[in-house]
């Protein structure tokens, strides 16, 4: 598959497939990959099934980072496949790339709470949990990927043992463990920090919450009382503030680091 776009297609397929390995939707993605790539990819998909088995045997909280770490090796396997079969497999790879891209959530992901009649787009009040998970950071800074990954790690370290960091090919994943005992703690929220090179050696950094858990008090065990809250909310907000400062320190002169989300975009003046 010639051309610069081939690099993008291979990377996108590798990241999409590795991401799907840790989800319940793997069989669906696998059948789509088998359909698009045909018999030429049987060996490759058998290898992916072995990866899937290993990832499924891991504790839930470790699956996403483990799958993310596989992206470079999956990409290398795809490159070999591309070299062996050339044009015969190129249309399938492009189709699979488009399919995997369409599966990427714009915001949020697993564990998204029901909208309950509120909307993010028309300006009506969002439920509290939605407001929290829609908070994030968008930055455009002059820095390399390694520096940004290190900044993410330092920001996560401000939470002590309440955060687990995984650095992958596509970005950095921070899993927040709000419980008192980390081994027993639920993982919420899971924050993904993506990095994308833009013009002039600048890097666009975006955070998004990939998954979260909510909790709510109940009366007599069944009657909901009080608002649904995001588990790990305090830790998540502390992490965002620390990351904002860390990213700002990487390019203090010309960088643009913006906090986004409900309550942060309204009434913003020039920096």
């Amino acid at each position: 598959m010639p051309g610069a776009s081939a690099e993008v297609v291979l990377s996108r397929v590798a990241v999409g497939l590795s991401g799907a390995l840790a989800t319940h939707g793997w069989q669906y993605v696998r059948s789509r990959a088998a359909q698009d790539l045909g018999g030429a990819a049987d060996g490759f998909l058998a290898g992916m099934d072995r990866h899937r088995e290993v990832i499924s045997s891991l504790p839930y909280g470790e699956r996403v980072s483990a799958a993310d770490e596989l992206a470079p090796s999956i990409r290398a396997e795809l490159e070999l496949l591309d070299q062996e079969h050339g044009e015969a497999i190129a249309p399938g790879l492009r189709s699979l790339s488009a399919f995997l891209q369409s599966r990427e959530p714009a915001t949020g992901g697993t564990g998204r709470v029901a909208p309950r009649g509120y909307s993010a787009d028309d300006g009506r009040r969002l439920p509290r949990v939605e407001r929290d998970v829609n908070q994030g950071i968008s930055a455009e800074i002059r820095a390399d990927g390694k520096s940004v990954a290190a900044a993410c790690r330092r920001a996560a370290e401000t939470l002590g043992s309440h955060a687990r960091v995984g650095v992958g090919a596509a970005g950095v994943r921070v899993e927040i463990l709000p419980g008192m005992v980390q081994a027993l703690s639920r993982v919420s929220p899971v924050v993904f920090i993506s990095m994308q090179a833009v013009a002039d050696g600048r890097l666009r950094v975006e955070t998004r919450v990939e998954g979260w858990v909510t909790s709510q008090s109940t009366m007599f065990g069944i009657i909901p009382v009080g608002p649904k809250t995001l588990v790990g909310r305090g830790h998540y907000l502390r992490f965002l503030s620390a990351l904002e400062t860390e990213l700002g320190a990487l390019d203090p002169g010309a960088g643009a680091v913006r906090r986004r989300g409900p309550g942060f975009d309204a009434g913003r003046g020039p920096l």
Partner: protein
Amino acid sequence: MTALILLAVLLLAVVLVLWLVGAGITNFVEAVFDQAGGAFARRGRRRASFTTSLRAADVRAAVSEAAAMLPGARVGAEPAVGRQVVLLPSGGGVVISVAMSGDGLTRVRLNPDGPEVQDDALARFHGCMLAALRARDPQSLSR
């Protein structure tokens, strides 16, 4: 049999009423929590704290460098010993206080000076301050 059915219907009605009351309380509490939660998130973002191995004099120099990194910002008159003020271009300022912590490190705290200080300008100055501290001591950390 009829009595049992009536009892079940009554129980169901009680649960339904309680559930509706619970939902009403939920909405009310949610609105209150929304206000408090927003204020909490803002307050947390408006303050910053760093630890460094630099001495107070070096921190003072780093404050001047940080102010120079942010266009329009300047160092103001010292309000008290051990404190400095940086006036931000968007109005208001940041009070920087330096204290020694028990582990021999220097703790640098940044607090907004005045309600008119914009959150974004503050956050940007926090980044500049950390960069200036790291230029002198790469081990400086945000806490």
